[in-house]
C-alpha cells in the first residue's frame, strides 16, 4: 500500500505491516492523550521508521494517491494535541 510521510514523500509498504502500523497508531493516540512527551516522540519515530525501512520510496515522478498519510517527523506533542483535541476528534 502507498503511504505518505508528510513533508517527506511516498513509500510503498507491503500490506503485511498495516496491523503493526495500526498498533503503533493506537499507542500514539494514548501517548498524546496522556501528554507523554517521550513516549510520543519514540512512537512517532517508530511509526515513521517502520515505513522508511520496510517500505520502498516511490519515484518522485510517479503520481498516485496514498492509502494512508502520516504526520511529518517533527510534529510536536502540542501540535499533535491540536490535531486531536483541538478538532474534537477523539471519540473516547
Amino acid at each position, binding site marked *: 500500500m502507498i503511504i505518505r510521510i508528510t513533508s517527506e514523500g511516498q513509500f510503498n509498504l507491503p500490506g503485511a505491516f498495516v496491523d503493526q502500523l495500526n498498533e503503533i497508531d493506537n499507542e500514539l493516540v494514548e501517548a498524546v492523550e496522556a501528554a507523554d512527551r517521550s513516549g510520543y516522540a519514540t512512537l512517532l519515530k517508530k511509526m515513521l521508521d517502520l515505513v522508511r525501512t520496510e517500505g520502498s520510496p516511490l519515484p*518522485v515522478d510517479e503520481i498516485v494517491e496514498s492509502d494512508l*498519510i502520516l*504526520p511529518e517527523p517533527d510534529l510536536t506533542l502540542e501540535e499533535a494535541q491540536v490535531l486531536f483535541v483541538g478538532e474534537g476528534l477523539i471519540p473516547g
Partner: protein
Amino acid sequence: MGMLSRMSTIVKSKMNRILDSAEDPNETLDFAYEKQLEMLRGVKRGVVDMVAAKRRIQQQASTVQANVHRLGEQAGQALNAGREDLARLALQRKQAATIELQGLDEQIAGMELEQEKLTAAEQRLSAKVTAFRTKKEIIKAQYTAAQAQVRIGSALSGLSEEMGDVSLAVERAETKTENLRSRAGAIDELAQLGVLDDFSGSQDPLSKELEAITSAQGVEDELAALKAGLPSAERKQLPGA
C-alpha cells in the same frame, strides 16, 4: 481515530481547496497545471522570505552580541567613576540583551532545517509537475473526453495530495518566518534602548551620563597631571587646590 486517519483528513482537506475539478477534462488538466505552477512559485517565494528573515536576524544578533560586550565595559567605566547606579543600569541592559540572544541560535538552526525541507518539497513538486505536464498532453491527444475523465482522476488526486503536503510545508515555513520576524522586531527595540554604540551622538540618557562622567574623569586626570607638573609656589594660587 488515530494519527493515520487524522493526518489523511488534514492533507485531504488541503487538497480539496486547491483543486476543484472542472467539467471539461481538458480544462481540468490545464487548470490543475496552472495551479501547480502557482504553487511552485509560492514555495519559491517562501524560501526567499525565509532566507531574508534569517539574514536580518543574524545581522541583528551579531550587533547585539557586540553591544553586550560594550555594555560590560561601560559598566566597568561607570563603577570606576563611582557611579554604581549607572553601572547597575548598564548591567541590567546587558542581561536583558543576553537573555534575548539566548535561544536565537536554536531558532536560526530550526529555520535552516525548515528551509531545507521547503527546498526538498519544491523539488518533489517540480518533478511531479513535469511528469503531469507530459501525462496531460498524452491524455489530451489519445483519449475521448469520457475516457480522459477516468484517466485523469487518479493522476489528479495523487497530485492534489502532493500539493496538499506542500501547502502544509509552506504554511509551517510561513509561521516560522513570522515568528522570526517578530523576534527580530523585539531585538530591534532592544538595540535601540540599551545599546551605547554611538557614544557621543546618542540620545540615550545612559550614554549621555556615561559620556559626561568619562569626560569629567578625563578632565580631572588631566588637571591632576598639570598640577603635578607645576612648581609649588604657583600651585598655591590655583583655586580649589
